């Protein structure tokens, strides 16, 4: 069982605001799921290489030259932002 403090810590890392009631719920639910995935501890994984992708990936290279300008307009992307000013995104102060 994970602790309430751990749930709070994880929520902070994940930038999720949770109420006290939700923290209690997540504590129960996450413990149950973590308990289920513990099953993987039964598997012998010595000398096994990890798989990150099912197909072999290659680095994709391109010529180091200027690329065609993006067709999506800056204004169009700014319109999607909840708040912007003078062509910049507006954010709350960091401190």
């Amino acid at each position, binding site marked *: 069982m*994970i602790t309430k403090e*751990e*749930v709070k810590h*994880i*929520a902070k*890392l*994940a*930038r*999720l*605001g*949770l109420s006290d009631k939700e923290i209690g719920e*997540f504590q129960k*639910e*996450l413990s*149950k*799921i*973590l308990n*289920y*995935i*513990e*099953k*993987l*501890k*039964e*598997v012998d*994984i010595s000398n*096994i*290489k*990890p*798989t*990150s*992708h*099912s*197909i072999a*990936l290659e680095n*994709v290279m391109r010529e180091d030259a200027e690329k065609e300008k993006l*067709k*999506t307009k800056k204004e*169009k*992307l700014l*319109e*999607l*932002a*909840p*708040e912007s000013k003078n062509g910049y*995104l507006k*954010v*709350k*102060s*960091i*401190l």
Partner: protein
Amino acid sequence: MELTNLTITQIHQALIKKEFSALELCQTYLEKIEKDDKKINAFLTITKDLAILQAKRIDEMLQINREIPLLAGIPMAVKDIILVAEVKCTAGSKILENYIAPYDARVIKKLKGQGVVILGKTNLDEFAMGSSTENSAFFPTKNPHDTNRVPGGSSGGSAAAVAANLCAFALGSDTGGSIRQPASFCGIVGLKPTYGAVSRYGLIAFASSLDQIGPMTKTVEDAKIVFEAIKGKDESDSTSVESEIRNSKNELPTEAKVKKKTTTKSSSPFEIRNLRIGVPKEYFIEGIDPEVEKIIKEAIKKYEGMGAKILEISLPHTEYALPCYYIIAPSEASANLARYDAIRYGEIKNKSASWRTKIKNLFDYYLKARGEGFGQEVRRRIMLGTYVLSAGYYEAYYLRAQKVRTLIRDDFNKAFQKVDVIFTPVSPTPAFKLGEKIDDPLKMYLSDIFTAPINLAGLPAISIPAGRVGNLPVGFQIIGKPFEEEKIFEVAKIYERN
């Protein structure tokens, strides 16, 4: 003739013969959606103006007797996690409630190039996380065969729309079963292509090493037509790969473009007596509905009767696939969903003055915007992913899961040395009731027990209708070797014909 029952090939022939116009067809579908979707709730957005415009363009071409591609004028629906330029794309989430896609996903660009008619965007579990479409932030979709039951998920809106004849075909996405399980529950055909076969550019990411876009259709032939139209390497998706079999149909002709005739690679004709079908014993386990098991076993017998060789195989790490999936998928999701900061995009609803005054700094803004913007299941998976990736746990969970993933893939590789395709059930049960599993996440996760291993291995797999339990459809799954979608189609067609 009931227009909304027609398959892609039937519509294509009728359009050429001018039995009806693309606009008439499009309007028939729009009217049917208006009338019938009240009961099913498959659609989140109807793109009426876009559809009419696209249909008229095809009629203009037909009027001057121009040759049209197979998909020209075909009314379709798009899962609302795939971007269509200038159309809202919510991913089923409050955090993207007002997000207007600034560009077309690659698959949409390709389909528009063929002249499809886009009717609208379909409902889904928020960010494709779920197996019932009940996790949509807007409303649940109902199963057209029984409106007290779920259509499956996460591509439940697309599956229900195809099954209820609200579109000729639809696009879905599949991370752990999200095309195949709803296809099974709704009695339609659903293909998850090989990882990399279809570009993911413009698909809102859930778990990037597992996600694939695929067709959801009424017939196997239709799935093949759509798959051929959307597949191929794309420089905007570095994980996409060119399949060896070339597209058989050309794109819409443009004045500047000279049409090149591409011929399909001639391979030896497919013969069922040479087919070796593997049946993994680990997929017929306790917990599977006996009626479902019976239907799948009968389907296998049918192939045996036609001369195919049936071989019992073993995929020994099957029981570890779902726990493995529930480490890898949430880990990737927690990283992918970090981008929803509600600053660059993502509207915050009810931004009242009091809402604002409580926020002192950027950190508080993130907590509030993300805490309120994401639903329960999405937050659960972000939390799980963040936990298993956090300091001190990485090796115990994520790295271990990646190693188990290797073993799961090796199981399939070994099996495919002896067999050509593998047959399994799609889901242990037919469609369950709305509300039945929503309060028990683990129970819900088990719906994907037969589909998630295939995503971990990156293999192509199709769900095709095999029978019914009462009124409820049951699908069976045909799994193929990487990039052997063509063989899957051939094998599936035999079943459809007999």
